């Protein structure tokens, strides 16, 4: 990967994902790699800390480049370890660097914001907005509805939001560290519980990483079943969120209708895969369940029925002037802002950031299926609603194409014990955005270290910008239009 400039020792990683890893030892090389990635229009996918075998601290960054994913690992000194800040180039790095400091005591030299992020202490210093008539609304960590916990601090004048500051980390469970209690062969279960609504995306990314580390490939039918599961997960989440978006726009009818369709969809998952969210269906080496042909055929028919229902509901949405009045212009993120802050996934594609791993770096079966990328530039709630409808219909097409195109055969091969220090990555376009898992094997098939990254890391800070100038009652709607993960970003 020439884009990385001076970085030495760049090695291609095995496995399904086009990826490479560069080991560097000097801060200059670390920052050169970040600059090179930035100049070549690359994206920062994730930044995390780790302990190398033997206890040496290290910091890692994964960049999305045109050729694929590149992981840069900087080995650090043991005493007062530090590395150059990259949040000036990639603003999304800011919170990740704060997390690295909390979890590993590794400092980002020159970073402006060094407040703790995951390590909670009393009296967190929120940024204060002062002026005539400005007051604050604190919300959370426990929210009014059935939602994950987090704290939002609104500074407002009248009904208008001047500033939103988030304080997250409430669901921090130390997942990266917890991985080390498992073997490579069993870690998919934990990966599948980083963010429950994206269990398939995480399990697939983990399986990719484990298979790369072990040097095996999953059988063809397993790859197709994985894509089937991923598209089913995308449809399930879009159904739920479209209903909730209608509800937050004052249209409870939508919630009842979409939740009914989602329930049908989850029950079908339960019948075909033995679990309503298909947790633990994807395993290193393949998939654990192979539905019989009758169930697969029923799945394709069901997808068709859902499409007809949702097309009808979309017409109702489109013709409902009250709903459209709430959606249009609410929570706008311009493509310029989205590019600068690194908005990814569904939110990014609604603001002109045309990244979709299924198209940009397709693995099987996406190479064959040729996914149609959905891109809008308006960047408001309306655009994100349109994107969800479009992506739902595309996923319906994919479900049908997968059922029709899947070949017979085995669905699982044994996972050999990976050699110590074997490294692999997984990179999957979940319904919310790109999910990354980076895995290194230890002795006796154990996990030496593992990092799971959620796209919400990037998109939460953008939400702070999206609500500026909107009225407080529109916040739930704007928030739901992104529907970011707390657990995934708090890990």
């Amino acid at each position: 990967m020439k884009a990385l400039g001076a970085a030495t020792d760049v090695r291609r990683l095995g496995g399904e994902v086009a990826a490479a890893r560069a080991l560097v030892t000097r801060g200059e090389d670390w920052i050169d790699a970040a600059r090179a990635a930035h100049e070549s229009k690359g994206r920062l996918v994730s930044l995390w800390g780790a302990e190398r075998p033997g206890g040496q601290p290290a910091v890692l960054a994964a960049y999305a480049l045109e050729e694929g994913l590149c992981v840069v690992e900087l080995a650090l000194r043991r005493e007062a370890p530090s590395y150059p800040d990259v949040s000036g180039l990639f603003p999304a790095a800011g919170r990740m660097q704060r997390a690295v400091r909390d979890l590993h005591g590794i400092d980002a030299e020159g970073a402006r914001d060094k407040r703790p992020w995951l390590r909670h202490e009393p009296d967190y210093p929120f940024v204060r907005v002062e002026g005539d008539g400005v007051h604050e609304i604190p919300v959370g960590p426990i929210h009014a509805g059935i939602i994950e916990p987090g704290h939002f601090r609104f500074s407002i004048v009248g009904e208008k939001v001047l500033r939103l500051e988030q304080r997250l980390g409430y669901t921090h469970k130390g997942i990266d560290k917890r991985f080390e209690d498992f073997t490579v062969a069993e870690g998919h279960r934990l990966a599948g519980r980083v963010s429950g609504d994206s269990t398939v995306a995480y399990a697939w990314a983990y399986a990719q990483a484990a298979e790369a580390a072990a040097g095996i490939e999953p059988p063809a039918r397993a790859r197709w079943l994985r894509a089937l599961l991923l598209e089913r997960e995308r449809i399930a989440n879009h159904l739920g969120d479209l209903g909730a978006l209608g509800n937050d726009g004052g249209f409870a009818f939508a919630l009842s209708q979409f939740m009914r369709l989602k329930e049908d969809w989850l029950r079908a998952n339960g019948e075909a895969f033995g679990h309503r969210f298909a947790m633990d269906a994807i395993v290193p080496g393949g998939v654990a369940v192979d539905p019989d042909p009758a169930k697969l055929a029923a799945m394709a028919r069901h997808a068709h029925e859902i499409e007809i229902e949702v097309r009808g509901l979309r017409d109702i949405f489109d013709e409902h002037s009250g709903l459209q009045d709430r959606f249009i212009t609410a929570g706008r993120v311009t493509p310029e802002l989205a590019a600068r802050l690194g908005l990814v996934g569904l939110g990014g594609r609604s603001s002109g950031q045309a990244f979709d791993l299924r198209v940009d770096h397709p693995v099987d079966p996406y190479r064959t299926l040729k996914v149609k990328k959905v891109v809008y530039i308006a960047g408001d709630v309306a655009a994100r609603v349109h994107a969800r409808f479009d992506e739902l219909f595309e996923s319906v097409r994919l479900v049908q194409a997968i059922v029709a195109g899947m070949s017979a055969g085995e669905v699982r091969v044994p996972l050999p014990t990976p050699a110590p220090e074997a490294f692999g990555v997984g990179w999957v376009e979940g319904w919310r955005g790109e999910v990354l898992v980076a895995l290194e094997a230890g002795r006796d098939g154990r996990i030496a270290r593992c990092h799971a990254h959620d796209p919400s890391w990037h998109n939460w800070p953008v939400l702070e910008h999206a609500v500026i100038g909107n009225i407080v009652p529109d916040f739930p709607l704007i928030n739901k239009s992104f529907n970011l993960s707390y657990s995934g970003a708090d890990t």
Partner: protein
Amino acid sequence: MKIARTGMVSEPSPAAHEEWRTRAPVIRADILRILGRALVIRQVDAGSCNGCELEIHALNNPYYNLEGLGIRFAASPRHADMLLVTGPVTRNMEQALRIAYEAMPDPKLVVAVGDCGRDGGIFGEGGAVCGGVSRVIPVDVTVPGCPPPPLALLQGILTALSIGERR
């Protein structure tokens, strides 16, 4: 038009969900006998992966007709008869959970949801997580599952109600 075409999807439906049909009136009668009014639940996510919340949301879909049973979710613990808590309880949520519990009027019921709510589940105990809900507040009933499906949640709620009766 759409509403008319959709019709009533609320279960009980024939045959396929017969068990649910017989259970619903029982639940309603129990709630009425024990509380003499609707059961109000405050849900608290004390650190879950959000999987349990998805199923609690599903419990609110028209199939399960929850409000028809007299069960409703409230925004404040001060209005709640029952705390429905998902776990594992993280260190960062420990205090908020305790405050929510203390804010509830007596008598209070607590249902710990899911394998993680029971004992920390796959996340275990230690480090950033306290473990199961009972590590932090008294628990009346734990509902196993990862996540427990809506019917199991409903059964857990009913079980807690019958405990309330025994007290």
